[in-house]
């Protein structure tokens, strides 16, 4: 039997890698991808909990996360395209419209 903590550890490491990608990459698409990575790592731990607790709730939650992730990706990429049309760049350190 694989202990529950192993899954959690795997999930934690993947999540941290996602955070690193989110904070460090310049390319906006990669930032989105890191976001998906983080979501997936959470999904793994949720399914693992679900399995070990013999409950369905974790898996249901994963459904909803996938739904939201799909919506988020669609909207996020649409915003990206709309933005790219005005300023032809997707490098996040060149975007500073919010500068005060």
């Amino acid at each position: 039997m694989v202990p529950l903590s192993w899954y959690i550890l795997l999930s934690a490491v993947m999540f941290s890698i996602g955070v690193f990608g989110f904070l460090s990459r310049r390319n906006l698409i990669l930032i989105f991808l890191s976001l998906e990575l983080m979501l997936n790592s959470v999904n793994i731990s949720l399914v693992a909990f679900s399995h070990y607790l013999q409950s369905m709730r974790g898996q249901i939650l994963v459904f909803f996360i996938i739904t939201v992730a799909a919506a988020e990706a669609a909207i996020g990429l649409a915003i990206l395209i709309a933005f790219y049309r005005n300023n032809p760049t997707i490098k996040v350190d060149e975007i500073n419209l919010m500068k005060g």
Partner: protein
Amino acid sequence: MSTPQLFFAYFAVMMTGLSLMVVTRKNPVHSVLYMLILFAHIAALYLFLNAEFLAAIQIIIYAGAILVLFLFVIMMLNLRKEETEKRFQKQWPLGIGIGVVLAVFLIMIVGKIAVIAPLGPYSIDAVRSDGHIMTVGKVLYSEFLLPFEIASLILLVAVVGAVVLAKRKIE
């Protein structure tokens, strides 16, 4: 180490490596392709956890829809010259720092917590007798009916929103 543990070890190593590849590749297309492999592994892990339906969803939705969307966008924007430039921002050491500290913190939490909860009715055998899809469906359409409807609304909004945002202005 027992066979399942060996199996898990393979997945753990592979998934960590693939994740690192995803966030470090220069070419976004490569990142997405590594992500694809990663999703296949995650789906396999779901099978390992007796969640067949989720594994299928993982492949169909994530790999089949979301990643394809990413690829579309990358190709549409045609970012050839970006590949020659720096892939990380100036603050990347901080990013690594935060990532490492976070990992350490989370691992420490894992050591601290103990899951003590009554086991639910969905044992492996119970799920197997009804089939995973049916079990999930029953829970989804009874206990989680309202969130399910809300999720459908979210998708609707996303569809409309994506169309509105991405279309060119009609003059």
